[in-house]
């Protein structure tokens, strides 16, 4: 989230597209309702009429996988109806930038496509620059090669009639959405977009999100209270885990994990943290080097010195994609010896799970650290498997649940809240910290004893978390915040600050690249300072602006900023665009900002020392035209890999960069229906945590499949009948739930039925049922490697699998 | 001959009908045991939609007015001093006593916590019709018992308690009548709480009054039926002309009832009235067959004085005027539209049949062994006259 949960109450229009907050983020509805009470409009854009839709002022149905068409249509509507926030677009986005000749778009493809690599040459798309290398601009936005004109041209194809032909949305509903949401373009009006898996789980998921961001920039809704691009994160601490480098291509704090070619620290820093030519751009990433070094110091402590590049070469340097699906693929191919599933249940959660389950059998050993016995940990006795044929040795480590251990948890709004142990772990369950600590000791000792090819990265690890039975979680948190390794003086503008060896760093501003500072995750510096544990704060007082930021409650990264890009909420002189909702405001007399922690302390743009609002990109302004997107600078509609129709917008059927994966098909004779998967309030994810709780099982005891009245009649299915759903990957059984909430889509004049189902079921636990992921395919997005869980082709029959 | 054998041979000597009754009663007994062993849920068709079923509707709501003969006749004979009806009093008292004992049994069967029955007196709730009825039924049963003891003492010739009872007789009758009035009507009050549940055809504020009146004329009809029956089957003298006196009183009550009912229907009831065909039909049967027709019949001297026709008229009143009415109020009229239908389970039915059988059986047995059909005024000396193998010589109490 660029904003945060409570901020939803400040909005005038909330568009929930590809998410179902009423069911999957119930508490968020407290704030959505607060906005609605103020007269805000709630829009739900979803293929199904959900519990969120039931509360919405406007519900627009959409065919799975067509959000770019939907959002592109809104962009076009805003541009043609002239509803955009002009000042904002001109000054705070790259609309005025002139794009070089390298960029072109023809028949669904951008230029510089390499058909062998199945990839674009991204570097070919740049701004035209003057000799100094400064990008050329046209403030009038008239120049035919300026981003604004290119944007207009690109989305001119997305007229309402074309759009609804693609998305199957009722035109009247679509127009209501367009009017209502684009209406937030005028200053003093603000709209927010909530999204989640309906947007991301697609072969063009990242472009979906881009489209959301572009629309918000055009309407001037970024950085504003009640606005923003708000991803409703998933797993309770998934925000934290991504912040800490969960993904294969990032290190903690979204530092890039080096690739094979990044041979030295210096070259890596040079490549990933470029300098900017823009005088007014903060280009915060130019400090990346300091964060990288502080991280290396955190990992290898004393051993990391300037001389040895701070142990940079201890870092694994990747080549290629090492995301979830690639790991599973390796496993299936028998190229993986062992697997540790710590709080993960791939036998249910991953796509094409029949293969994944078989793959687990190719492992020598499997470790699961979990609260429950999961489908993964008992894969060897799953229905249809013969334990005798499975050689894998399985270790189940009982893990302590969140309420059984102390630590921090980060929510979607980037608030890190400290939690205490409420109850002691059951039986001999242990915290993940304890488990990892044990791994560390044993592996370290093994390497010490038996050395091996390259023991140093392990043997030389710094591990200063006390000597107790359990590592001291406060020591961990302090290291993450960072501290000084020696007495240091830092000159900050006019004054010099003195720090002693061992002092906590006040914030990442003080982090250094000379080894004098340590920080485990730079964006979290400031969370545990000499003032103490900021994450444990519980001051219930709001700011005078009454926007619900509660700066004294917990702590949010970065530097306790509650709304990101908040410099974009004020005009060039520092006056809030929306005086009713002043996130920050420049106090000219005292020469300081008031309100939220500003995005960099520099004065407003107009001031000679002033800077642009978007401090994380070299340009300093928001990117309507993206320079580094693998699959194109502008989001373009492509069909899902398994689609019921030809792409009406171009000859290119689906995202050319996408990894299609195996056994997918578009054979409408065998698979005439669209299949989609989703969650429901009553169950959690792969189900381990809820399918064994009788009170929740009582509510939703069985796997079921939602279909429309029409489809039911056609297939002679009655509510409550057993049915079988089939795809190219496999088939599952469930109860049929025939409901008005499912309606066929009329696309290109033909009516296409959809089959919806929760993916929560499996063969372990109290309530068991077939897993929807038996049906889903491994097609994935090129940029995020997320699987296309939301759109595939299937068929449905009356009767169980026997039938 | 051991006592056991005595009993057996005694039973062998019973009329076949009686022996069938014995079987039914034993069946009911076992059913009742089952109910306590396995609980209400398992043995009855009661559920959250039908918390009350056959047992409440028949064993309580219907049985109580059926047992009303005692107090009605008692009042007529002793208070209004219409002596010639006296021969009917004792049989009536016996049925009353039996009726009420069985009502108590029925109530206990229906309670989820029968062992807590006494709580009613420990934690009384004056606002609860149920409390009032419980109280009345208990005390009335005691009264009925005392009244019933008379023939018993006579049989065994306990003269002192007998005299004592005799002196009490009148007060008891009065007390009984008063108490009966209360609970007969309060059973109607039960259903005043069921607003929005009991259909408008039956729901009206004077329901309790109507219950009382119907109890009264039913009481008398029961006596008629009883008398005719015992005349036929227990070869007792024909009382037709005695009964004629009753049949002259009945139409009055029927008439008043009819008037009040119509008045309530048109001035006190909510609308709609005739929206549900089935209920309308039930209502029609109840009113026409159960009230109007008998009313007309009783108006005719010929019918009033003809045993058979008396019986028919009275039968109608009891079967439709009362039984149907009570079921309409406590069961059929409470069924909401498109709601599942309740029907009693086997066990419920067996128990109820058993209770009815027990009633008849005990009456017959008592009639057989106790002096309930001897006619003589209170001052008669029964000690000698009692036909039964009676007590040793006695001091004859001198005449008043």
């Amino acid at each position, binding site marked *: 989230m660029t904003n945060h949960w409570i901020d939803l109450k400040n909005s005038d229009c909330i568009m929930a597209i590809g998410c179902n907050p*009423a069911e999957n983020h*119930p508490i968020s*509805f*407290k704030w959505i*309702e607060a906005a609605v*009470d103020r007269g805000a409009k709630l829009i739900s854009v979803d293929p199904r009429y959900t*519990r969120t839709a*039931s509360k919405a002022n406007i*519900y627009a149905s959409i065919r799975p996988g067509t959000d770019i068409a939907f959002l592109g249509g809104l962009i076009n509507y805003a541009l043609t109806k002239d509803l955009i926030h002009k000042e904002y677009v001109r000054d705070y986005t790259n609309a005025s930038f002139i794009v070089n000749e390298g960029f072109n778009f023809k028949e669904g493809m951008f230029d510089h496509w390499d058909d062998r690599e199945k990839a674009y040459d991204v570097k070919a798309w740049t701004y035209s620059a003057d000799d100094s290398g400064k990008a050329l601009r046209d403030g009038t936005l008239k120049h035919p090669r300026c981003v604004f004109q290119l944007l207009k041209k690109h989305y001119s194809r997305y007229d309402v009639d074309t759009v609804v032909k693609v998305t199957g949305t009722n035109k009247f509903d679509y127009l209501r959405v367009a009017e209502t949401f684009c209406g937030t373009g005028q200053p003093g009006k603000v709209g927010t977009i909530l999204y989640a898996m309906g947007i991301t789980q697609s072969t063009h998921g990242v472009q979906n999100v881009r489209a959301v961001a572009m629309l918000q920039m055009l309407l001037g809704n970024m950085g504003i209270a009640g606005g923003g691009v708000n991803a409703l994160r998933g797993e309770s601490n998934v925000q934290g885990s991504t912040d800490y480098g969960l993904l294969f291509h990032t290190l903690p704090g979204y530092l890039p994990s080096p690739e094979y070619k990044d041979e030295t620290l210096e070259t890596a820093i040079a490549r990933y943290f470029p300098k900017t030519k823009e005088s007014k751009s903060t280009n915060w990433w130019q400090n990346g080097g300091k964060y990288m070094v502080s991280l290396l110091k955190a990992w290898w402590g004393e051993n990391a010195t300037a001389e040895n590049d701070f142990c940079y070469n201890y870092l694994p340097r990747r080549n290629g994609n090492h995301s979830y699906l690639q790991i599973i693929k390796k496993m299936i191919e028998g190229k993986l010896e062992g697997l540790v599933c710590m709080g993960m249940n791939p036998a249910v959660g991953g796509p094409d799970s029949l293969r994944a389950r078989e793959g687990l059998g190719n492992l020598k050993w499997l470790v699961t650290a979990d609260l429950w016995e999961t489908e993964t940990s008992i894969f060897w006795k799953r229905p249809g498997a013969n334990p005798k044929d499975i050689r894998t040795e399985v270790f189940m480590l009982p893990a302590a649940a969140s309420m059984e251990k102390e630590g921090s948890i980060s929510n979607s709004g980037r608030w890190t809240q400290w939690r205490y142990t409420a109850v002691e772990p059951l039986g001999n369950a242990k915290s993940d910290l304890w488990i990892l600590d044990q791994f560390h000791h044993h592996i370290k000792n093994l390497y010490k004893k038996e050395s091996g090819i390259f023991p140093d990265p392990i043997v030389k690890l710094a591990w200063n978390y006390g000597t107790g039975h359990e590592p001291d979680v406060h020591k961990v948190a302090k290291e993450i915040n960072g501290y000084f390794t020696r007495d240091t003086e830092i000159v900050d503008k006019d004054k010099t600050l003195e720090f002693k060896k061992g002092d906590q760093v006040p914030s990442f501003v003080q982090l250094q690249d000379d080894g004098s500072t340590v920080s485990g995750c730079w964006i979290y510096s400031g969370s545990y300072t000499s003032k103490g544990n900021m994450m444990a704060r519980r001051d219930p007082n709001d700011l005078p602006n009454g926007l619900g930021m509660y700066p004294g409650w917990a702590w949010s990264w970065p530097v306790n900023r509650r709304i990101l890009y908040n410099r974009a909420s004020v005009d060039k002189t520092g006056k809030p665009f929306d005086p009713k909702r002043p996130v920050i405001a420049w106090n000219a007399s005292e020469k300081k900002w008031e309100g939220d922690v500003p995005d960099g302390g520099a004065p407003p743009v107009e001031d000679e020392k002033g800077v642009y609002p978007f401090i994380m990109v070299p340009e300093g302004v928001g990117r309507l035209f993206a320079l580094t997107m693998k699959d194109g600078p502008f989001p373009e509609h492509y069909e899902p890999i398994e689609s019921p129709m030809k792409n009406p917008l171009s000859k290119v059927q689906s995202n050319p960069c996408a990894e299609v994966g195996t056994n997918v098909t578009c054979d409408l004779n065998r698979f005439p229906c669209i299949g989609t998967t989703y969650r429901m309030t009553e169950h959690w994810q792969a189900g381990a945590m809820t399918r064994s709780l*009788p*009170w*929740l*099982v*009582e509510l*939703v*005891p*069985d796997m079921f499949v939602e279909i429309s009245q029409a489809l039911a009649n056609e297939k002679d299915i009655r509510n409550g009948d057993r049915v079988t759903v089939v795809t190219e990957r496999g088939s599952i059984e469930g109860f049929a739930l025939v*409901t008005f*909430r499912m309606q066929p889509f009329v696309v290109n004049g033909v009516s296409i039925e959809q089959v919806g189902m929760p993916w929560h079921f499996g063969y372990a636990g109290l309530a068991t049922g077939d897993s929807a992921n038996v049906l889903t395919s491994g097609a994935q997005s090129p940029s995020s490697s997320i699987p296309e869980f939301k759109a595939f082709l299937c068929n449905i029959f009356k009767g169980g699998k026997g039938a | 001959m051991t006592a056991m054998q005595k009993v057996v041979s005694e039973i062998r000597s019973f009329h076949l009908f009686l022996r069938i009754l014995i079987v039914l009663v034993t069946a009911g007994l076992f059913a009742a045991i089952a109910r306590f*062993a*396995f*609980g*209400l*849920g398992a043995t009855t068709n*009661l559920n*959250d939609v039908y*918390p*009350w079923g056959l047992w409440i509707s028949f064993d309580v709501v219907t049985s109580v007015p059926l047992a009303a003969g005692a107090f009605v006749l008692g*009042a007529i004979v002793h*208070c*209004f*001093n219409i002596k010639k009806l006296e021969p009917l009093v004792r049989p009536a008292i016996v049925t009353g006593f039996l009726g009420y004992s069985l009502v108590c049994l029925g109530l206990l069967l*229906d*309670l*989820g*916590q*029968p062992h*807590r029955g006494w709580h*009613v007196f420990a*934690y009384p*709730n004056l*606002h*609860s*019709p*149920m409390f009032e009825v419980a109280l009345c039924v208990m005390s009335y049963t005691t009264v009925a018992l005392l009244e019933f003891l008379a023939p018993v003492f006579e049989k065994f010739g306990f003269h002192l308690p007998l005299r004592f009872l005799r002196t009490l007789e*009148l007060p008891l*009758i*009065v*007390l009984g*009548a*008063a108490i009966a*009035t*209360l609970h007969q009507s309060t059973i109607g*009050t*039960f259903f*005043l*709480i*069921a*607003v929005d*549940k009991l259909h408008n055809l039956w729901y009206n504020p004077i329901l309790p009054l109507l219950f009382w009146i119907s109890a009264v004329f039913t009481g008398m009809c029961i006596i008629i039926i009883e008398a005719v029956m015992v005349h036929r089957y227990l070869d007792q003298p024909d009382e037709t002309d005695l009964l004629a006196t009753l049949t002259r009183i009945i139409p009055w009550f029927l008439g008043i009832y009819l008037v009040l009912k119509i008045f309530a229907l048109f001035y006190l009831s909510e609308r709609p009235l005739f929206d549900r065909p089935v209920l309308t039909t039930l209502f029609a049967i109840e009113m026409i067959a159960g009230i109007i027709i008998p009313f007309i019949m009783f108006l005719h001297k010929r019918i009033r004085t003809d045993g058979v026709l008396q019986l028919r008229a009275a039968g109608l009143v009891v079967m439709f005027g009362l039984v149907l009415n009570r079921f309409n109020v406590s069961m059929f009229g409470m069924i909401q539209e498109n709601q599942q239908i309740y029907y009693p389970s086997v066990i419920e039915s067996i128990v109820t049949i058993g209770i009815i059988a027990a009633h008849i059986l005990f009456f017959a047995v008592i009639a057989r062994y106790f002096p309930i059909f001897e006619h003589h005024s209170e001052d008669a000396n029964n000690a000698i006259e009692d036909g039964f193998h009676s007590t040793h010589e006695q001091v004859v109490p001198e005449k008043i």
Partner: protein
Amino acid sequence: MSTERDLSNQRTFLIDLTKCTGCRACQVACKQWNQMEAEKTSFFEGEGYQNPATLSEYTLTTIQFKDYFHEGKNEFSFYKAMCMHCNDPACVSVCPVSAFIKTPEGPVIYDTKRCIGCRFCMIACPFGIPRYQWSKALPLVVKCNGCYSRVKEGLKPACAKACPTAIEYGGRQEMIDEAKRRLAVNPGRYMNRIYGLEEAGGTSVLYLSAVPFDDIGFRNVTRRPLPSRTWAALRFVPTAFITMGGSLAFISWLTHRKEKIRREKEMKEVERASQKGDRS
């Protein structure tokens, strides 16, 4: 049963169904706080994701789902069924052993130690709330007790506490005012009715809805407090007793007096007759 009591401070639920997302946190929180057994369910029982079908001996509150199509629009509605905690509760008035009590705080609670299991409360409740332990050999009644043990301690009921959006809990007058405020500021959003304001003489659970209450399973209930109906009759009990007893006693005194006089007359005649006989 006096309704003149000041109810303005009775703890009261305001359940705004236009804000209810059907998340059923309330339903689960209720089971957890009251440690109620889970029911064995299969698929769904009713519309939408309904489970269990209704209140029962194991379930004190349910969300009643309605899933229908109306004027070309979907309706997916959720109604939290629970005890209404009537101001003047029928269950309290009919219970022969006063097992039900209307607490001064508002909740209507039930004393398992008193109940004799007559089920009159179930007949009496206009909202059909009390349920019976049909599964037990010695069954008791089961019903939402308004989390009295929490309310006594100044806490919200478990369901109100768990609810993210729809349930306000506070003094009755305060809740009524809030409900009226919402109806006033947002007339388009609501049916212009507060269910529970007058139903059964007023309850401590109030509902607001966007769709007609009858469409989503609410009962149409009389406005007049139910106990007043029975009380209207029970009031006469003492009078009836005395008049009946009294009049009968009087009548019999009259009739027996007549009788006595008649007898004495007869006696005299007999004597006279015999005297005559002596002479001759």
